[in-house]
């Protein structure tokens, strides 16, 4: 048995430890407390509607009927639409900047792309109202209806304000996150890996496919998931373009509503306790969905990062 030695920490280090420990615990306490508070406030609504709250499509404050399904639907559809558009484009931007562009061009474009993340969401919303929605109404939606109208997603009257607008604006907003993170993890791929592929007679694209993307894939997944997280919680820009109507319609052109948007819009109008309680329950569900998606994202990142037996990537 070897003797155990205990390092005697100086007083300063002990204070530092206590200080940082209390900060770490503080964050945890805050989170649990918030969760509890939300649950407590939402309790009347939970007791009244039970599971029916998340399966009901009726949202009628006048008749005291509350169902969250339209909001859950609106949030999920716009977020996944955003992901579907932003993930390939963000990855493409990252590949171009990292592997193809001249270094000067790379610096300028990289900076501009990251600037997109700095624009306040209300500004995106204004752009959505005055530019994106009218353009969707007059050009994109009629075009989609004409060519892809046999799919229910692209049927109906072009309105401009709706899930398509919400998804598009979210896509623009999460694009810089995905591009910046993908670019960073791709820049971290050792040059040796690229040379290994090139020396075997790989073209540029084959080099990217064989050496760069597999090496960076768990980081890229992480970036996409971070983008999804941002899309799920985004409030202002979405509420300005989604149409704010609690309906579930198959068409992407149709107005809809999102969870974050309904909370922000109706909070001040919640004139009685059950109404308020229902809104808080929606917040609780949003919280839950984010947690669950993050859990699966972690699982995904972990499983793609594992690689073949006996070794791990990176």
């Amino acid at each position, binding site marked *: 048995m070897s003797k155990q030695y205990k390092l005697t920490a100086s007083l300063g280090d002990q204070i530092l430890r206590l200080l940082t420990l209390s900060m770490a615990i503080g964050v945890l306490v805050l989170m649990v407390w918030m969760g509890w508070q939300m649950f407590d406030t939402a309790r009347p609504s939970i007791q009244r509607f039970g599971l029916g709250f998340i399966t009901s499509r009726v949202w009628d404050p006048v008749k005291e009927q509350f169902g969250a399904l339209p909001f859950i639907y609106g949030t999920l559809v716009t977020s996944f639409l955003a992901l579907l558009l932003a993930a390939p484009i963000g990855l493409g931007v990252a590949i171009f900047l990292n592997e193809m562009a001249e*270094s000067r061009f790379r610096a300028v474009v990289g900076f501009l792309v990251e600037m997109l993340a700095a624009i306040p969401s209300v500004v995106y919303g204004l752009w959505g109202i005055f530019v994106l929605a009218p353009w969707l109404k007059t050009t994109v939606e009629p075009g989609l209806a004409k060519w892809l109208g046999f799919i229910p997603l692209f049927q109906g009257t072009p309105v401009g304000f709706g899930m398509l607008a919400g998804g598009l604006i979210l896509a623009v907003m999460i694009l810089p996150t995905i591009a910046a993170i993908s670019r960073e993890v791709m820049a971290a791929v*050792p040059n*040796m*890996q690229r*040379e*290994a*592929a*090139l*020396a*075997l*007679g*790989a*073209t540029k694209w*084959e080099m990217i496919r*064989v*050496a760069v993307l*597999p*090496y960076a*894939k768990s980081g890229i997944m992480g970036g996409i998931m971070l983008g999804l997280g941002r899309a799920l919680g985004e409030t202002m820009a979405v509420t300005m373009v989604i149409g704010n109507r609690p309906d579930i319609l198959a068409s992407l052109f149709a107005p809809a509503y999102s969870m974050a948007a309904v909370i922000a819009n109706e909070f001040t109008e919640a004139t009685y306790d059950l109404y308020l309680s229902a809104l808080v329950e929606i917040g609780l569900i949003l919280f839950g969905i984010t947690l669950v998606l993050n859990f699966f994202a972690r699982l995904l990142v972990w499983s793609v990062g594992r*690689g*073949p*037996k*006996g*070794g*791990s*990537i*990176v």
Partner: protein
Amino acid sequence: MGHTLSVRQLEAWYGSNQTLKGINMEIASNHVTAIIGPSGCGKSTFVRCINRMHETLPGSKVKGEIILDGESIYEQDPVVLRKMVGMVFQKPNPFPSMSIYENVVAGVRLNGMRNKKTLQDIAEKSLRMAALWDEVKDRLNYSGMSLSGGQQQRLCIARALAVEPSVLLMDEPASALDPIATMHIEGLVRQLKEDYTILIVTHNMQQAARIADSTAFFLNGELVEHGPTSEIFTNPNDKRTEDYITGRFG
């Protein structure tokens, strides 16, 4: 069969720094040619010009001619050229997301080969040539990263051989390895010259003496002397070669 290489007035730059100055050199087929010289003498740049890897670095430039089996390499598509001129790097660099088997056939797959049986045969043949088959045959689906450094380097050699090049470039292939692993690689190089023309850059003069048929001494971007290994090491023509060999500098 290996192919002959002839290098004519080769010059190379990296930024404003000229790393190769008018190199003329004939490289015999099915020979092991060692490139020796102190750090920064241009020996790595030299082999990296032969598979046109040097050009992939930003700010690099090349002038002159390299003739591979009667054809100028600068008139060929580099992607095609690199299938004929394989390369093994200083540090083992297997693809970490791939298994041992997938690593070996990575290049063959890039060429469009999909037949499973053929791929398995190529993998076995290449691993046997790289003297690694017996050590890995029961765990081909394990990660290439699960192997030791020396095994990883032989895996990289197998990966290069699988594409069936005619020339094999080795840039200090044993410098990151322990003596036993180095011995393995050296034994391998002696066998491989039956089928390939081999250029090996080395820091280690004993290594050059042990495995090379001919040796070229580079200094400050110039080829000082090139001849049969025994002659270079026992009776060099140039004073600078002698000084380097006897350890007076470098």
